[in-house]
């Protein structure tokens, strides 16, 4: 630094306008759009506010906030590459979830299973997209894209960060956006596949679940997972750990911590970290468009197969199961269950399905964690 001119030039060269690429400017607009959707439209704001803000921060020229020494880059390495953040979120989800409705009606696990068709058909859709010039999805990429159909943010991030870190940004945006759009995506499909009579079916009240049953549940799930599907053990393990903290009744301090301070802190860090993957050069390409399209398909198919399985179960049970609750099997907890309730009330103003939809809803979380385990076992091996 010598003359004032040189100094001014140094300073000019450090301004944003002298360094912006069009891609960065566009990505900052996309970040602002995510913030708008989160704040004004209440699209999953807990995740999309940090993620949108992270998208803005990571596209600032020069500042390198997503670089290896920047705050977002450090958070990404510490929490996403190691997969710690999604696992801790899963612990929090476990601590926040009451599995009572599922224990009262274990059959509804089948609805949670059926909805996973969304994952696997989308996987094939992604592979089929390779026929279109400009797409080069590997099997690992396709698996990561398919998992969007699990409608479960941390599971999608867990899988994508392991199989296709480059696609993580687009996958996370798709997963959370469509979870927020569930009230728009699901109802038409639900109405199309059911008759008015089916939608009016009222279901029996759920039985009371004792504390011991609630304690036994996470341990049962964990042990089955240990015996048959250890590759799903990290996700299922943390989910059931959180749930055991909640239900065991002797560690309320820890349960409260998992439900509040821990999940809040990690949500902020996770959102910012994922935002760091929304850099222009990783996000602005054909593949992102493909992922957004495929994600929508995944949600739609998952909803459809859930409802169809609901219709089958209704037949087999002699008309006791309202097929609408199958739509909650995609997870998107608790939004999908609320959508079921709303569509049910539309058909019959006294038909409250919320509690019955919670069963398949949380079953969907377990279902996609299982699917994630299989994908990681076969593709990630």
């Amino acid at each position, binding site marked *: 630094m010598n003359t004032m001119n040189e100094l001014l030039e140094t300073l000019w060269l450090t301004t944003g306008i002298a360094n912006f690429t069009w891609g960065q400017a566009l990505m900052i607009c996309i970040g602002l759009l995510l913030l708008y959707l989160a704040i004004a439209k209440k699209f999953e704001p807990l995740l999309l506010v940090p993620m949108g803000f992270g998208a803005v921060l990571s596209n600032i020229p020069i500042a390198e906030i997503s670089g290896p020494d920047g705050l977002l880059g450090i958070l990404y390495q510490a929490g996403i590459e190691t997969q710690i953040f999604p696992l801790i979120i899963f612990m929090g989800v476990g601590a926040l979830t009451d599995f009572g409705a599922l224990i009262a009606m274990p059959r509804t*696990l089948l609805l949670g*299973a059926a909805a996973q068709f969304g994952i696997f058909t989308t996987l*094939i859709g992604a*592979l089929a997209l390779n026929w279109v010039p400009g797409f080069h999805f590997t099997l690992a990429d396709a698996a990561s894209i398919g998992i969007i159909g699990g409608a479960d943010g941390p599971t999608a991030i867990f899988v994508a960060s392991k199989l296709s870190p480059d696609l993580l940004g687009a996958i996370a945006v798709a997963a959370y956006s469509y979870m927020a759009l569930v009230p728009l995506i699901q109802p038409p499909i639900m109405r199309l596949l059911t008759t008015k009579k089916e939608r009016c079916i009222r279901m029996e009240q759920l039985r009371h679940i004792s504390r011991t*049953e609630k304690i*036994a*549940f996470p341990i049962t799930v964990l042990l*089955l997972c240990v015996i048959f599907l250890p590759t799903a053990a990290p996700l299922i393990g943390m989910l059931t750990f959180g749930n055991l903290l909640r239900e065991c009744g002797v560690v309320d301090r820890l349960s409260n911590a998992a439900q509040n301070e821990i999940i809040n802190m990690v949500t902020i860090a996770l959102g910012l970290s994922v935002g760091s993957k929304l850099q222009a050069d990783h996000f602005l390409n054909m593949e992102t468009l493909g992922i957004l399209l495929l994600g929508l398909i995944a949600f739609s198919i998952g909803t459809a197969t859930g409802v169809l399985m609901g219709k089958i179960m209704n037949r087999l049970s002699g008309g006791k199961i309202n097929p609408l609750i199958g739509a909650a099997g995609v997870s998107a907890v608790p939004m999908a269950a609320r959508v079921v309730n709303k569509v049910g009330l539309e058909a019959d103003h006294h038909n409250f399905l919320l509690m019955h939809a919670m069963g398949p809803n949380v079953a969907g979380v377990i279902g996609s964690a299982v699917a994630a385990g*299989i994908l990681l076992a076969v593709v990630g091996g």
Partner: protein
Amino acid sequence: MDELIRQGLQLMALGMGTVFLFLSLLIAVISLTSRIIQKFELKTEQAAETMTSKHDDLVEVISAAVQQYRLDHPRRK
């Protein structure tokens, strides 16, 4: 149909198969566990029930009111 899609279809068969198998097994085990627990539990339950109801109604009302106020004014917490 190319190789990659064949692999995808295999993965689908395998994946959905495992999901259904695993969750069906879970149905069986949960139902069984519930039945066992319900049998052994009648007496324990009653003891537990009486223990948790030692608060009085006034406290509940005040507390709920305060809770509601807090929810309406989250930032002052």
